[in-house]
């Protein structure tokens, strides 16, 4: 379903924009205002990160956002409630992003059911490779949700195909080694990698890690379907305030 929706959206736009926020950071009210700003500015889909105490794949900016949200008392239930209110209000696909323990402790079946009830489109779980994802895949399928999986520059082609078999919605291609938040070189290496990704799957492709401005988005136009702006939006909020988000996004495309 998500894949289909995205393909439809791509009919309208050369490249889609996906942004990332950490739920409860700096607080739920600001999250809402950020989402408002982003949707108004034309963001096409969004990752809502449920904070986790051990965000192993995240760099310092998102890591601290996770901690700060937890320290302020954010719970999984609050995140689910908040997400429900957001999906009601805004007509773009929303995805959860979190680590597997959050789903596991909630119960993978129950979590999927809940996601579907509250209108989420799918989830990104960076520490859950397809090999470990049996129960998760079954439950996500049962509730018509998109399990987003990840490609990385060192993923071999056979594995890319195996991943594509498990994935739905789109494939999240990480631009480079490392965690979120560091710079990426938008180079011919990246181009070759994206070509490999393209060859391995028919699903839409998103590219994230290090996308920060219009130049980056321009580079990606025609090469992937979705540009993911993660850390950079958090930085904008931190440095320029919630109000600056809309303008930042509108300038990207």
């Amino acid at each position: 379903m998500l894949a289909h929706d995205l393909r439809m959206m791509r009919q309208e736009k050369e490249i889609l924009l996906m942004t990332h926020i950490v739920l409860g950071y700096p607080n739920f009210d600001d999250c809402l205002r950020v989402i408002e700003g982003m949707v108004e500015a034309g963001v096409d889909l969004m990752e809502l990160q449920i904070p986790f105490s051990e965000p192993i794949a995240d760099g310092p900016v998102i890591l601290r956002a996770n901690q700060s949200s937890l320290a302020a008392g954010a719970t999984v239930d609050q995140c689910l409630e908040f997400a429900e209110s957001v999906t009601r209000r805004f007509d773009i696909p929303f995805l959860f992003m979190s680590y597997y323990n959050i789903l596991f402790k909630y119960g993978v079946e129950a979590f999927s059911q809940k996601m579907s009830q509250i209108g989420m489109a799918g989830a990104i779980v960076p520490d859950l490779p397809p090999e470990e994802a049996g129960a998760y895949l079954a439950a996500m399928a049962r509730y018509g949700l998109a399990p987003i999986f990840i490609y990385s520059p060192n993923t071999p082609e056979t594995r890319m195909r195996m991943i594509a078999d498990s994935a739905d919605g789109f494939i999240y291609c990480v631009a480079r080694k490392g965690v979120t938040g560091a710079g990426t070189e938008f180079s011919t290496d990246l181009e070759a990698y994206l070509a490999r990704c393209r060859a391995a799957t028919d699903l839409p492709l998103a590219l994230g890690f290090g996308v920060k401005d219009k130049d980056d988005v321009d580079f990606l136009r025609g090469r992937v379907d979705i540009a993911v702006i993660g850390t950079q939006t958090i930085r904008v909020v931190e440095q320029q305030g919630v109000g600056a988000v809309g303008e930042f996004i509108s300038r990207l495309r």
Partner: protein
Amino acid sequence: MDDRGNARGYYGEFGGSFIPEILVATFDELTAAFSEAKADPEFWARYAELMSTYSCRPTPLTFCERLTKHFGGAQIYVKREDLNHTGAHKANNVMGQGLLVQRMGKTRVIAETGAGQHGVATATMAAKFGFDCTIYMGEIDVERQRPNVFWMERLGATVVAVTDGTRILKDAINEAFRDWVTSMDDTHYVLGTACGPHPFPEMVSYFQSIIGSEARDQIRAQTGALPKRIYACVGGGSNAMGIFSAFLDDSEVELIGVEAGGRGLETGEHASRLACGDASVGVAQGYKTYFLQTDDGQMRETHSVAAGLDYVGVSPILANLRDEGRVRFESATDREVIDALALTLKMEGLVPALESTHAFVQAFKEAPNLSPDDVIIINQSGRGDKDIFTVADAFEDPKWREFIKRKAEEYDAGA
């Protein structure tokens, strides 16, 4: 040691490999290199030779005559991992991984450390092999364990104080993973205990199994029989797996893992994952096991007088052995540990690390109820003189305080 995990490193429902895609290739490479090494009889021979010329393997098995008399029950033997180079069983693991790094042609190692022991051991290994070395250590631990930081730096390692999260061991692990996802081409992450994603639990246990295979030969040579019980402290589980593994098939040998009871299980301020009901199954730091976590799945703060036991997770292999009923789990409080340390010092001249002393506590509780024909082994995973700041504080030694104050005055005067 036989490999009881399956190909994805599952032990019952525990273990596995929950890692970011970017690391999958690295883990594949590591798993392959480790499998190859294990299949190569030369490799273990080189490992054993390295450990016998650089550290002092086989480490002795010491009979504790006076403690035995004191408790009037089982004959008490102690396996002396404290005599290893750098003062703990951690040496076994790092030197083994060092050989593997050499085999893989990498030139840099990273590691997490809590107590500092594993950091010192890794920095030592790196110096010996000529690898670059970065050690991640929670900021709080850096402050608590300054002597170890001092030695790591002198050994040529870069020590990075991790200022995120709770700023202790688990955060150092996260940070090491963050380094690794960038640097894996030339870098190996030397995980310090039998935890983490496959193949680490198996690999660390494999290198540590040298403890148990020696101990099994030694106890039979020295007493003519197998022991009735074996006690080991359990932080991540590497020293326990190390000594237990050789006895897993000896069903007459009871295996007891002792966790940190901290200020008492009832206070919640402890690090007991298997000895009480406070922990639940979860997935974090790349593997599935019992974690001390909230209902939401957030990791909780833990407490132990022994920094090396102060960890939220536990070896998936041990979690499974607990659920299978093969290993019994107990806990020892901070107070009991200090008392057992005092007794062991006075009666045998042994200075177990605070971590190791947890195993002594439980052995002391049980020894009187066993028969003088019974033999028990305590695994002394490390030596306690590294812990002088903690131990002196625990004993509330006034002369030590005076000494530190005088030193500080000297430094003030000089600065």
